């Protein structure tokens, strides 16, 4: 049986044509043609896919909402944790700033040795101006040691336990500090007030005291070291019939915002009680 010639060369022709089309497609000559042909198909497929996705999301919505809620809760928890971290870091930065300023202060007066302490409590009675600090006898602190900040004088240790100390602020009514008015070059007494302020007493009538004059500790009496900043004179009261002038004081330290203080640990207060003459019997 004879095979016709046309039928015998057909497969070869198909292969050649196919190869030609493939080569044309690979070389990019058929791109406009394929774009033209495929465009309606792609549009149709896109339309179908969008509708499918819409239906699928509608059908699967509860699961997605639950997953989203869970994710939202996770993110909220993460957000809260990060916010807390930010607050803690801000707190650490603030503490670092306070400590840095205290270190600067300690470096500026090298003759004194300092021990830093945190303020852990305030006196519960409104008549008393005392604070509690977290250092005590175990840290080498003793009653009478002065307390300062980089701003100025805070007070003196009044009572002590092994791990804590009670500090009498200079604003306490029972607190008396011998001070020196730098500009007027006179000594006076700083007396605490019941209102949480302090006033200058026993200023000689002849002294020329002006508002803004700097007040430093004088070191007299042996209770505090000399030349610690206390504050500034705010207003002066001078009456001709008084023996002394008095003045209100703008204290250097903000006692409502005390957080960290320095204890001057190498200062020993002098007990001058035996030197005070007693009346003979």
């Amino acid at each position, binding site marked *: 049986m004879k095979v016709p010639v046309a039928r015998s060369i057909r497969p070869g022709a198909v292969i050649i044509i196919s190869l030609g089309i493939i080569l044309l497609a690979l070389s990019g000559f058929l791109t406009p043609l394929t774009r033209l042909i495929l465009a309606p198909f792609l549009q149709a497929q896109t339309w179908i896919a969008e509708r499918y996705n819409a239906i699928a999301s509608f059908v699967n919505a509860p699961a997605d909402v639950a997953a989203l809620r869970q994710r939202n809760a996770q993110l909220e928890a993460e957000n809260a944790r990060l916010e807390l971290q930010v607050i803690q870091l801000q707190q650490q930065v603030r503490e670092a700033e306070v400590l840095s300023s205290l270190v600067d202060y300690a470096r500026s007066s090298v003759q004194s040795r300092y021990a830093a302490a945190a303020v852990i409590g305030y006196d*519960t*009675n*409104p*008549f*008393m101006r*005392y604070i509690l600090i977290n250092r005590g006898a175990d840290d080498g602190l003793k009653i009478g040691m002065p307390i300062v900040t980089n701003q100025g004088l805070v007070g003196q240790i009044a009572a002590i336990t092994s791990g804590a100390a009670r500090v009498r602020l200079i604003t306490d009514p*029972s607190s008396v500090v011998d001070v020196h008015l730098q500009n007027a070059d006179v000594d006076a007494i700083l007396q605490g007030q019941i209102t949480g302020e302090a006033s200058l007493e026993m200023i000689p009538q002849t002294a020329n005291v002006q508002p803004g004059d700097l007040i430093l500790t004088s070191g007299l009496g042996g209770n505090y070291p000399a030349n610690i900043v206390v504050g500034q004179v705010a207003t002066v009261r001078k009456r001709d019939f008084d023996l002394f002038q008095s003045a209100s004081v703008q204290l250097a330290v903000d006692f409502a915002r005390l957080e960290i203080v320095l204890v001057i640990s190498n200062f020993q207060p002098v007990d001058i009680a035996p030197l005070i003459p007693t009346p003979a019997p």
Partner: protein
Amino acid sequence: MTQSLFIIAFMSLVGLMQSAVFSRLNLLNGKLDVLFLFVIGWSLQPRVKARWLWAAVGGLIATLLSAMTPGVLLLAYMLTFVIGSYIQQHFWKQPSLAMLAAVFIGVVIIHLFSYVAVSLISGLQPVREVLNFLLLPSLLLNILCAFPVYLVVKDMASWLYPEELKV
């Protein structure tokens, strides 16, 4: 025994909170005294048997936390407790009114005792300043917080001392 230990532990915790937190919340120079409010709150719980223990523990803790002359605050707290109980038993059965009256009288007593003690130690203090900057702000603060503390004490009382059923 367990209740007594709980009282000591709870009042110690309140004392710590008072010293570390509430003492910083000032109105002028007046202070909120939560320990005192708890003592007053317990004085108004008639079915609680060892009410005086709350006042004693509160007074001791206040004495420890304050530089005030030892005994002054304990005495003031105990007196306040007695007055609170008396008010509740004889004047106002309504606890809210009794609480207000007891807080008012108690704050005045504590400030009066403190004023006398401070004046004896540091010299006579100006009465007007004490009234304007200490007593009145303290009164306002403590009266504002009296009701919340009373509600806490009331809940604690029913939890610690459950009412006995009469058969």
